[in-house]
């Protein structure tokens, strides 16, 4: 009852000094806004990245060339992986169910007058099974296509739509880097698969891509699918052993390839986002500190202005602790109102950022809002402490005489 009354009184006080209180809470508004939008952006990014990793599948092991132990991290430029490595993995590792070597590059695709920049993915028939990525029309690349280095291609959903509109693309001929290819299928709409926007991708047999389109010997990546996801580490050991013997790497020498899983990649991303988190929260912390000073200032003014009121309250039976509680609650209420405004502005700001940038995904977790409000109340109480103590120490006789 007492607390309720005091909160009510605090709100009344705010009402009479609207402008002043708003300005005083500005620091808290900015601080909370920073916390909320930082959390929204980080959580959104985390969610987005997690979603992409999850689309990779937990049973997948990715192999890229280059050592991860070098000082500069993964050096993907080192060309080490060949098509025969993929075959070896499939042959020798009994824990691996499927292997899809990949080569990736950008190219122009042309259909009559229509020209479009796309990502070319050279791979094998294993690709769609590993990734659970299906065709909506026609068929996927087949083993014979790879073996025969056939000039066939499967269009990503967006590519088909851009070049052919509503008409079925299957059976038509398109030109990739000047070479004619027959469209044999169109993929389903998928968005992202791993970090690739697969809807804007054109899939060709890996042999065709390596020899006819790019003239390279090395593959970009080999995706392996384990038979049993719970036995992933054993599969990794097998893959590593196979590749080391394939590349004739002597014992004690570093791998010339890097193996990673969804879990490891997630962890790496988490490490990076943590750095951002620390930076963003430091900024938020500083603005909240400034906000706290603002609240303290306004509370000191309020205590001075209301000296007589304090005198009266003591005269009619308020204990020192009552006076202190009143001002603390007032500070907390002011600060929390600032916090609420900050939450609104923060949510709005992150929504705006999402719309402007179009790539940034934001998500405001409910916990962020609670966290921000609790923090605002905390800032209010901490910064209200000194003014409240001052108020509670007033001499009633002096206070009643105060002009």
């Amino acid at each position, binding site marked *: 009852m*007492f607390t309720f009354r005091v909160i009510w009184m605090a709100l009344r006080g705010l009402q009479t000094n609207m402008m002043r209180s708003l300005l005083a809470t500005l620091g808290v508004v900015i601080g909370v806004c920073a916390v909320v939008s930082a959390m929204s952006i980080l959580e959104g990014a985390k969610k987005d990245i997690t979603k992409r990793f999850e689309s990779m599948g937990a049973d997948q092991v990715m192999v890229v060339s280059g050592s991860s132990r070098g000082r500069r991290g993964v050096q993907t430029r080192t060309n080490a992986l060949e098509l025969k490595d993929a075959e070896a993995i499939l042959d020798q590792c009994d824990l691996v169910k499927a292997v899809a070597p990949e080569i990736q590059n950008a190219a122009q695709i042309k259909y009559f007058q229509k020209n479009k920049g796309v990502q070319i993915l050279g791979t094998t028939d294993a690709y769609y099974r590993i990734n659970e990525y299906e065709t909506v029309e026609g068929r996927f690349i087949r083993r014979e296509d790879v073996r025969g280095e056939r000039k066939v291609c499967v269009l990503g959903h967006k590519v088909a739509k851009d070049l052919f509109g509503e008409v079925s693309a299957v059976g038509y001929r398109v030109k990739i880097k000047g070479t004619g290819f027959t469209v044999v299928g169109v993929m389903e709409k998928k968005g992202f698969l791993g970090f690739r926007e697969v809807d804007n991708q054109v899939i060709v047999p890996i042999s065709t891509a390596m020899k006819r389109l790019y003239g390279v010997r090395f593959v970009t990546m080999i995706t392996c699918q384990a038979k049993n996801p719970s036995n992933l580490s054993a599969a990794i050991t097998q893959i590593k052993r196979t590749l080391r013997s394939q590349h004739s790497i002597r014992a004690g020498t570093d791998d010339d390839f890097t193996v990673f899983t969804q879990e490891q990649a997630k962890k790496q991303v988490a490490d990076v986002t943590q750095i951002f988190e620390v930076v963003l929260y430091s900024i938020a912390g500083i603005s909240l500190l400034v906000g706290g000073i603002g609240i303290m200032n306004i509370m000191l003014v309020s205590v001075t202005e209301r000296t007589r009121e304090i005198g*009266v*309250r003591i005269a009619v*039976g308020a204990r020192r602790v009552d006076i202190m509680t009143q001002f603390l609650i007032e500070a907390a209420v002011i600060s929390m109102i600032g916090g609420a405004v900050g939450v609104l502005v923060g949510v709005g700001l992150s929504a705006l950022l999402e719309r402007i940038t179009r790539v940034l995904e934001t998500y405001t977790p409910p916990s962020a809002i609670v966290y921000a409000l609790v923090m605002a109340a905390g800032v209010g109480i901490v910064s209200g402490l000194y003014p409240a103590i001052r108020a509670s120490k007033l001499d009633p006789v002096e206070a009643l005489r105060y002009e």
Partner: protein
Amino acid sequence: MLIQVRDLSKVYQMGAEVVRALDGVSLDVDAGEFLSITGASGSGKSTFMHLLGCLDKPTSGTYHLNDRDVTQMSDKELARIRNREIGFVFQTFNLINRTPAIDNVAVPLVYGRETFTNKKAMDALERVQLGKRAKHKPSEMSGGERQRVAIARAIVNNPKVIFADEPTGNLDTRTGEQIMGIFHDLHKEGTTIILVTHEMSVAAQAKRLIRMVDGVVDTDTPITPSLRNEMLHSGMFGASVLTDSGVSGGTESGVSGVTDSGSTVAAEPGVS
């Protein structure tokens, strides 16, 4: 005995100077009395009221309120005494302007440490005939109405004693009389009223007069009808009435007194 004061002193240190605001005052007040404390500014009457009202602690001496030694009490106990047994009415009303009358009256209830409804506050407002103005803010009220709200606040917990510090000082004569009327009513209902004033015409309405000079009680006398008459016509402090001609006097009417602010006020010629 409601109030029993023995040898009460209050000494302030003002720089190098020691000010004896109250210098060994003794006083007994029975429950249901109506007394006025008067004296020039600096005579110690305000200090005395603050001590009696438990707003301040004496330097020495004892003060028993309702047979309990107030001077030995903690801050917390004093707060409870002020809340339960004492009501204050001030010259400048001291209302909280941003909240309506009813909330002002309810302030002591807030500190009463028990759940309450606005009914008690409303009852108190009814007693000062302001029930209809409960939702109005003090800034929307006349001086008399504000003082009535202040009285309602003082009586909301049905205290045993009300201290009124120059309650009519900021009001015109007619409104002042209305306010005094309320104090008379409260007195009839059994509340002890202690009125602090420097206006003789106001002090005269009590039943007993305490006059303070330089921190001591100079005069302590019942107000008889003839003394009242003297006081009503004697100007400000009634110095002449009380010192020169004694309590029964009446011959010295027509003197002039000096007000606090220094202006000379001519008293009306005596009406024997």
